[in-house]
């Protein structure tokens, strides 16, 4: 997935002189996760450069550049560190088009790795998507595989509104279904691991059906797509797994159609549960599919605690917990 993201940036920098990339350690070094590797050498230091350690400053700079007319792609080194920039994203980026009556707008992309599973402890593991999805005026995108990662990142850069682009860091170097005892696998063997060289995009606002199924709809994104697919296999439940890809705008039609078909719904995310994005999904499904529901909508999520270093696998919502929810939801007919 790292190479796919790198390729998306490279392709867009090639096509559009107004695209540039910056962030902490993004320039000469190529990013601590190597996503911008080689871009400075190829496109020059003015188009791919290091910044001071100020997330607020990085986002402010991107906004200023965006209103000037560029399409900056800013990296926040870990999603855990995006909050110093929160006010800039919420009070400025998300509101500028609206409050200026369309006079100014902010075509920026803020990339940031999120999620656990890499022994990062409390401050290199968080999934803060819900504090963005609540913000009117921001889009939030999360890919689950290399093909989508490239296509969605290109679509995000081309989008004329601010996009928070969250990258599941546990998937950077291969798919991961939560079975952490298993041998690591690489994207090479995965169908969505194949990424075309040139330009293409995956439109924002369209979910993917990662697995078709008749009995339960599983709604998920990022790393949890692979966990949910594993759970579908392990549980033997014929689950339809929906990979949201973008949380805002949300593909409500795909969700609604699926739950109306299956009559059951399990929502999976890695973020802590209370007031998480799963709550909105649950509320929407309930509002739109109430009379089709055969059993309560379930949420399988991280616990309502920080992500503790030593208890990573106790915190991570793995396939065993999803399996339990799938089986529980099947109890009601």
């Amino acid at each position: 997935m790292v190479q796919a993201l790198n390729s998306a940036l490279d392709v867009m920098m090639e096509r559009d002189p107004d695209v540039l990339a910056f962030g902490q350690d993004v320039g000469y070094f190529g990013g601590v996760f190597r996503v911008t590797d080689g871009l400075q050498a190829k496109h020059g230091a003015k188009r791919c450069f290091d910044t001071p350690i100020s997330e607020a400053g990085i986002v402010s700079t991107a906004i200023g550049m965006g209103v000037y007319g560029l399409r900056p792609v800013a990296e926040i080194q870990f999603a855990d560190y995006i909050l110093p920039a929160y006010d800039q994203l919420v009070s400025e980026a998300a509101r500028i088009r609206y409050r200026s009556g369309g006079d100014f707008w902010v075509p920026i992309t803020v990339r940031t790795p999120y999620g656990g599973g890499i022994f990062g402890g409390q401050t290199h593991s968080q999934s803060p998507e819900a504090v963005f999805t609540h913000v009117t005026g921001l889009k939030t995108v999360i890919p689950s595989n290399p093909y989508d990662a490239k296509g969605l990142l290109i679509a995000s850069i081309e989008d004329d509104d601010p996009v928070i682009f969250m990258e599941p860091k546990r998937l950077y170097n291969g798919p991961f279904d939560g079975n952490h005892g298993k041998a690591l696998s690489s994207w090479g063997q995965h169908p969505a691991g194949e990424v075309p060289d040139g330009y293409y995009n995956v439109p924002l606002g369209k979910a993917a059906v990662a697995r078709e199924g008749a009995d339960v709809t599983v709604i998920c994104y990022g790393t949890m797509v692979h966990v949910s697919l594993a759970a579908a296999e392990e549980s033997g439940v014929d689950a339809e797994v929906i990979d949201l890809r973008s949380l805002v705008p949300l593909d409500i039609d795909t969700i609604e159609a699926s739950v109306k078909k299956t009559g059951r719904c399990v929502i999976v995310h890695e973020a802590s549960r209370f007031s998480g994005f799963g709550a909105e999904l649950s509320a929407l499904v309930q509002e739109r599919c109430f009379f089709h529901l055969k059993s309560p909508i379930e949420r399988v999520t991280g616990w309502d605690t920080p992500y503790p270093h030593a208890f990573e696998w106790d915190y991570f919502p793995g396939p065993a917990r999803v399996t339990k929810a799938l089986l529980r939801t099947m109890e009601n007919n």
Partner: protein
Amino acid sequence: MAAKDGGLSLHIPAPKARPGETPDFSHIVIPPAGETPRPAIDTAPAEMRDLAYGLIRVLDDEGTAVGPWALKLEPDVLRRALRAMMLTRVFDNRMFAAHRQGKVTFFIKSTGEEAIGVAQSMVLRKGDMNFPSYRTTSFLMEREYPLLDMFNQNLATADDPLQGRQLPILYSAKAYGFYTLSGNVGSRFHHAVGWAMASAYRGDTKIALACIGDGTTAENEFHTALTFATVYRAPVILTVTNNQWAISSFQGIAGGESTTFAARGVGYGLPALRVDGNDFLAVYAATQWAAERARANLGATVIEMVSYRAEGHSTSDDPTRYRPIDEATHWPLGDPIERLKGHLTKLGEWSDERHEQLYAELTDTITEVYRQADAVGALGVSKPPVGEMFENLFATPDWRLLEQRKELGV
């Protein structure tokens, strides 16, 4: 200063005078006009640190422009500046009256600070961008932003150019080089740096200017803006208007008790000027110097404009509750309109009569345009179409906005 029994004690800064006490500005050190040297624009910041602790002044007590910062400006230019400042004041008074009449719920004047926006407007070129504060009205006035649009926005009439989305005073006027305002203080200050970096990235010639209040220098953006400006040598002018007050708190609460705000710039390795903000000629010259530096690819400059907020913070404020009622009249740097008037008069290019006549003329204009806007109908009488509420959030609305708009039936 030590606490009783040798312990520590907490220092809480307090202004020299509170209501009922005699105003005291003895801490404002005022060097004679013309005394401060004017270094070449390519001087290294380290060689001009003193400027951050001085005060650039051009107009002396007799109204004569003196010293190295006295540029040769044509009388027409000065009259144009004077007019824009006066127009701002007349406009502010008309809006204040509208507030008392219940036409608007909120307004902010810039009384006493009109020189700053006017000089900025004159120094900036078409294509440059000002990232203003809510006290930068005179910039729009100098640029002849349509008064009717201004009133329509302030009254939130059906013709409001910002479609009813913004409070009074929070303008957006890209075509005039005026960036979108917001109620949050400070949060756009760094955008000027990003914008200027973009201009430099493109190999363009445009520069940016940003305004912030003394109180607001405490916000995060002040720091990040100065940091990025120094690192990338952004072509931007970073202006602090020190009008001595935030809302009810004096500039000592913002960190001005033991140093100047210009000095902050020195800390980041930037050139920093401290200027008599009520002296139009000084403001113009300092801004011009900084603009030349920026255009010559020499990077950012910090400017502290020393001024005084002569009226309440906004219509919601009552300054007599926290400062002497007559503090404004004791302000030692005078009133910017009076001082420029005095200079022009001294030059033989202006007179009391012409001044009175211009005031009358501007008052008529403002009265007439206000009448037109009021005829459209202030909020409550008319307003923009409610459907506007769901527009312009994204380039294209998503299903939520479409459904909700339908639900509201607009």
